[in-house]
């Protein structure tokens, strides 16, 4: 399936799902109001029409912006960030942030051969700086440790 056809298909399916969900919404509580379902129906309508349009016209094959290698890299960085968020939900801000800064910096630096201790110093200093800035100076909340 070409890129445009699969995009059209996704839009079509999304449109149908929205429409089905919207059909179950209750009528408005206000007299004279057209109700909460009209706008979801409009979004769904646009998605269904444009999705169909792309299914019909999208037969031309187009180059993807991704190669096999870049898809693997994308999955890798996505997994790292997901792990970071998961870890932060349990361990709080400090440790996961320091770790993710180190890992991401190593990933981005790759062939540049940056000394590991430089990256480690960067990760520790930035983590502490953000912590002090948010926690002590600005009085903003940061994720907290849920385990111990």
């Amino acid at each position: 399936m070409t890129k445009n056809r699969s995009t059209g298909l996704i839009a079509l399916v999304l449109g149908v799902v929205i429409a089905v969900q919207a059909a179950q919404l209750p009528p408005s509580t206000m007299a004279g109001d057209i109700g909460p379902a009209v706008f979801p129906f409009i979004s769904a309508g646009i998605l269904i029409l444009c999705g169909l349009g792309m299914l019909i016209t999208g037969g031309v094959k187009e180059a993807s912006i991704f190669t096999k290698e870049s898809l693997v890299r994308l999955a890798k960085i996505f997994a790292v960030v997901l792990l970071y968020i998961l870890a932060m939900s349990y361990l709080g801000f400090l440790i996961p942030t320091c770790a993710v800064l180190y890992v991401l910096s190593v990933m981005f630096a790759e062939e540049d051969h940056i000394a590991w201790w430089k990256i480690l110093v960067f990760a520790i200093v930035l983590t502490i700086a953000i912590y002090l800035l948010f926690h002590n100076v600005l009085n903003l909340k940061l994720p907290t440790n849920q385990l111990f």
Partner: protein
Amino acid sequence: MNTVLLALTSFFQPINLLLTFGGCLIGMVLGAIPGLAGGMAITVILPLTFTMKPDMAMSLLMGIYVGGDSGGYIGSILLGIPGTAANVATVYDGYEMTKKGKVTKALSIATVSNFLGTLPSLLAAMLLCPVIASLAVKMGPWEYFSLAFMAITLVVSLSQGKMLKGFIGAAIGLFITQIGYAPISATRRFTFGSRYLSGGFNMLTVLIGIFAGTMIMLSYANRDKGATMEFSQKVEKFQFPGKEIMENAVNIVRSFLIGLFIGFLPGMGPALSNVVSYSTAKNSSKHPEKFGTGCADGIFAPEVANNASIGGAIIPMVSLGIPGDSTTVLLLSALTIQGISPGPLLQKMQPEVVDMIFIAGIFSAIFALLIQIVGIRILPNVLKIPYHFLYPAILVLSFMGVYASTTNMFSIYSILGFTALGIWMTWADIPVTPFILSFVLGTTLETNFRNAISYAGGDWTSFFRRPVSCILLIIAIGSVLMPLIRKKTQK
């Protein structure tokens, strides 16, 4: 006039001046780095403003906004790589001039051009906003709906050759605003019983996922590490380009007007104005053959126009509450967090707040000029900031900004979801601006549409019976049909 004085007195505190200056510097540094659009600086700095007083927050934000639009030429001139899309046309002559050994002259011209674009455009906005706002208070829900609708269709119609994708983007953006409590009837929609979803998605969550998350992950995936290369030319002290300004007086005024007007139109901002202004300058020049070989005219045109778009873009944001591009969307959401909601009512009820926005902007323009003149030899070093430190730092800072404003982990997971959406949209070639604009305007659209129908006693034709609303709708429909008709006739 009184309100201007009032705003001036509240602006003139050392802390506000310092914040404006600092914002300007940060904006300029981040705006200069290729790949980081001006809006990125606002996302990174945003958490700092949460606990600030509104006047301090406005000073900082305007500094970043103006500074962010002013630093982009450095990459264009030194490396031939534009810092942002707003500086694409600056490459044509700016980089050529550098290759000829006149890098200092090129930077000096661009510096002066920035100022000549920003300052008058903010003054123009200051004069025009009250006028537009006083007209806008007379608008009913019909006109508001039609205006927001027109803004979205104009942006969709710009996605040339892929209008269907533009509409898909807009429809997804619209759908996301429908998650949570519906306006007017307060019905829960698409929340699937989750209490996190009942308030809908926070604007910052969506913007950071779509912009920062997507940009960082894609640049890693595609090994797109920007332009951390060395440049050999030595930059000298600032040289005031007096002779060039005199020769380019007409060019400067024309570029200014183009920039102001294009900035005012929704969705078009500096990314378009610099290119249009460059080609207009070339076409109306007495020596068009010199363009592209390193002539001053070719630097003045894009750099005046892209900065003039600052004032242009601020007009609809301040006077109507309708932002035109992603940077003003971020600025608008930052102001909203401060409890300032731009729109005709703000102008009427708190004119001193509106004036404060402009005064902070004007001082940012002055600071930007000073920083660029004094720092002309230091600023190019910004291009050497390594991406392997920058991107992880931006990721963590923007995540924590969202956490600080929502205080729940759900919003952080949502960022990842919107990052995935952003990556899918990039892959599918779905333009992001229609998505963002209809996401920002979705609730305005729906509230006004439903109010209008209910005021008119269920009469759907009321949108066409009111002249202003009718004209706006005709423009909206025309903007979508025109490219299709043109395509047909060309065949």
